[in-house]
């Protein structure tokens, strides 16, 4: 799906837990996520810290969208 969105000229950040799959399928801007059942959260953290973690991941995804890339890039 990331590829089809990229194809129409819309930059897309793929926040994905299994980065190798995202790379294999062909997403161009990849942001590694936390875990499969909670990619943008961590239930072990207090809720305010968890929200901060999520905000940081989303900021990273937005940063990826603002970065020109030539080929597949993982934003660690």
């Amino acid at each position, binding site marked *: 799906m990331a590829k089809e969105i990229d194809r129409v000229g819309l930059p897309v950040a793929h926040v994905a837990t299994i980065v190798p799959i995202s790379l294999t399928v062909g997403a161009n801007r990849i942001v590694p996520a936390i875990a499969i059942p909670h990619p943008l959260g961590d239930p072990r953290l207090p809720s305010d810290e968890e929200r901060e973690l999520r905000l940081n991941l989303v900021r990273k995804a937005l940063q990826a969208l603002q970065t020109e890339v030539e*080929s597949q890039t993982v934003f660690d």
Partner: protein
Amino acid sequence: MARGKYRIVHYLNQFFAQIGGEEKANTPPLIKEGAVGPGIPLQQVLGEEGEIVATVFCGDNYFAENIETARAQVVEYVSSYTPDVFVAGPAFAAGRYGIACADSCSAVREKLGIPVVTAMYQENPALDIYRKDAYIIPTAGSVLGMKDAIPKMAALVRKLGLGQTVGTPEEEGYFPRGIRVNQFVDQTGAERAVDMLLSKLKGEPFQTEYLMPTFERIPPSPAIKDLASTTIALVTSGGIVPLGNPDRIEAASASKFAEYNIAGIDDLTADAYQTCHGGYDPTYANEDPDRVLPLDAMRILEKSGTIGRLHDLYYITVGNATSVANAQKFGRDIAERLKATDVGGVILTST
């Protein structure tokens, strides 16, 4: 006692059957005895063991535009010569001819139960449609590849004609058909896997037993220039839906995606949203769906002016065992819908 010659019927288009060019492309199927055009060198390579008893030919446009009629007629003609093997082409990169060759092969195999062989260029659109149905030999993209293609086709036709066992795609040089064959080997899977890994670590060649599909690459879209004035959309394959999953998105092998309006909602809560994704423990996503679809974070960044706006609709499907073909279809549809709005960038989350 000498075994009788095995019998071959060959399929060609109007051009290779020497009927004419595009002006004859509407010619319906016909058959004549013996080898014609590329069938002549094919017969030479096959020698005395096999014989091209007849050649069926048809105009490329006729076949493409009347595929069911043409296919039925070809099968009938082929059947009347009771061949042991059917061979078509080579079609090289020709799209209509490739379809005609491969479709004839597929129909002959299905109706007459005999082995079928064709040949074409790797980017011929017929390859992916019919690769399971026929042995398809790779050729060059143009007729210049004829002299290489003929001996390869002949080698496979001969094996099939003599009723010999056909080996793997690597051994015989045909495109992989996606067929798995059980075989007995001395080493267990674990031993073979470790051997492969050791070879890989040493930089030595090794042969995988399960080739992963290859995916087309798309050039990255240009970056967002001014985030503070850009509308961002959320898309997820993580299955976050309104409670009760009103559109019945499947937990695995999804056949559809959905769009839901989140205008005026600042946080996804357990009493209104859930995940419908199978294959992972849904506890955490159900407890706080923002863990998969980060609506709360997007609203904070919208209010602080980091992004221009969050798009009113989000798109959701389930990635669990969903076919690449379906994911592509959903992706295309979602992309078209987003393209029609002022959305300038997308965050796609996957579990």
